[in-house]
């Protein structure tokens, strides 16, 4: 096991409907790392995040998260408590009636009291500049607002690790900048999947390129220009 590692994928094999996505994939995310993940469509970027969360199970290989090997559904309950995963499509994630209720969903599931939940909701509304949308019905939010609300809902669980799946999709420049500022202000280990090179360069310490699900080669931000 690599020292200081939060997430470690060792020789992971994964196929989806007879198509091999990962063939002996190795990947390590260390504490405090802010890692970007780029790659062509269908390379398995989202699949990797879902494997880490235990939403899908690998065919073979070992998955070590927070120092323990995770295999069964129960093993992942602990992982999910401490890992914030923001889905690609915020519509998959938001399902309460109002923004405030949705932000409170996670903390209440983790056993927060009413007062604690209210405090968390307030902090996160402020952090994401959503104060005015507190009691707005979810179906009345714009695409960008939904994205921020989904992020706020995940941040409300005070995760140690943040997994973001294309967080800048549907965000305008103003909101993208806001997101960059928030991500740079918080002291979290992050793994961010995105096609937006500029966004990754301004938020991550290093960027990985995933292709054919075979291997992960890393690029330092300074080398990124040669990638394009």
């Amino acid at each position, binding site marked *: 096991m690599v020292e200081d590692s939060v997430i470690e994928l060792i020789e992971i094999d994964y196929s989806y409907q007879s198509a091999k996505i990962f063939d002996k994939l190795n990947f390590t995310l260390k504490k405090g790392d802010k890692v970007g993940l780029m790659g062509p469509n269908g390379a398995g970027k989202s699949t990797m995040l*879902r494997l880490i969360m235990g*939403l899908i199970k690998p065919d073979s290989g070992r998955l070590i998260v927070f120092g323990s090997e995770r295999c069964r559904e129960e093993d992942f309950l602990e992982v999910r408590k401490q890992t914030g995963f923001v889905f690609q499509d915020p519509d998959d994630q938001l*399902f*309460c*009636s109002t923004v405030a209720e949705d932000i409170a*969903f996670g903390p209440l*599931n983790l056993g927060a009291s009413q007062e604690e939940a*209210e405090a968390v909701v307030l902090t996160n509304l402020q952090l994401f500049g959503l104060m005015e949308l507190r009691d707005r019905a979810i179906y009345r939010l714009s695409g960008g607002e939904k994205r921020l609300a989904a992020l706020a809902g995940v941040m409300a669980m005070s995760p140690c690790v943040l997994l973001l799946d294309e967080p800048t999709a549907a965000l305008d420049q103003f909101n993208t900048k806001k997101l960059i500022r928030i991500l740079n202000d918080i002291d979290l280990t992050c793994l961010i999947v995105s096609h937006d090179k500029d966004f990754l360069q301004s938020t991550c310490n290093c960027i990985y390129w995933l292709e054919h699900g075979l291997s992960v080669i890393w690029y330092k931000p300074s080398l990124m220009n040669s990638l394009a």
Partner: protein
Amino acid sequence: MFHEPFTEGESFLHNTDPRVKIIVALVFAIIVAMSGEPIVLGLAGLFVLLCFMLVKVDTTILVKRLLIVNLFIAFLSATLPFTTPGQTVVTFSVFNITKEGLELGATIFLKSNLVVMTSLFLLSTSSIFTLAHALHHLHVPGRLVQLLFFTFRYLHVIYLEYIKLTEAMKLRCFKAQTNWYTYRTLACMMGNLILKSYDRAERIYQAMLCRGFYGVFPTFYHFRLTRTDKVFGVFCSVFFLAMAALSFLW
């Protein structure tokens, strides 16, 4: 997420404890369904009127909802006079309209409207999320509550996917006609709809798991049993007892 127009607004019934409302609506529905005496139905009508006065809802939406319900009941009420055996009132060639049939049709029409209206006033004024939580408090088995919540949630998902698909079809100049091409296209759309909704439903459930969902719906806006709730509950109990007694004695 989903549009629940009646949950918006402020009124006596909006603020009533959802647990009380669920019980009241359930007992009302049972009594009305079990009895057919005019006096009991009259009292039930009075109760619906009372609820209507205690609630503030958009009457246009209310009428629209009732129209949808009555579309189904209309079929039933229209066929029952012909199919129920009994004393003939009018004869159309081979078809006889019977007195019993007319009465039965009218009773079903009346009863269903009464029950639907009370449910709209009492239950639709709370969000489905709050109702799910209230059902937990009433010790309804967790699996049943989840079933109810997800049925509602996924119906909405299917509806949204349907809108997206039909829009995409319109944008590519699809026009429904009476030919095989249209049938084929619509069949493809239905197939796609089911697959896409299934996938999305899966993702929603996974997103809930990722946020620590363990089968219980937590609520952010907590409800407390207030004095007003108790008074409302006691009043309804007395009213319903009177209805039940009348129906028994009649």
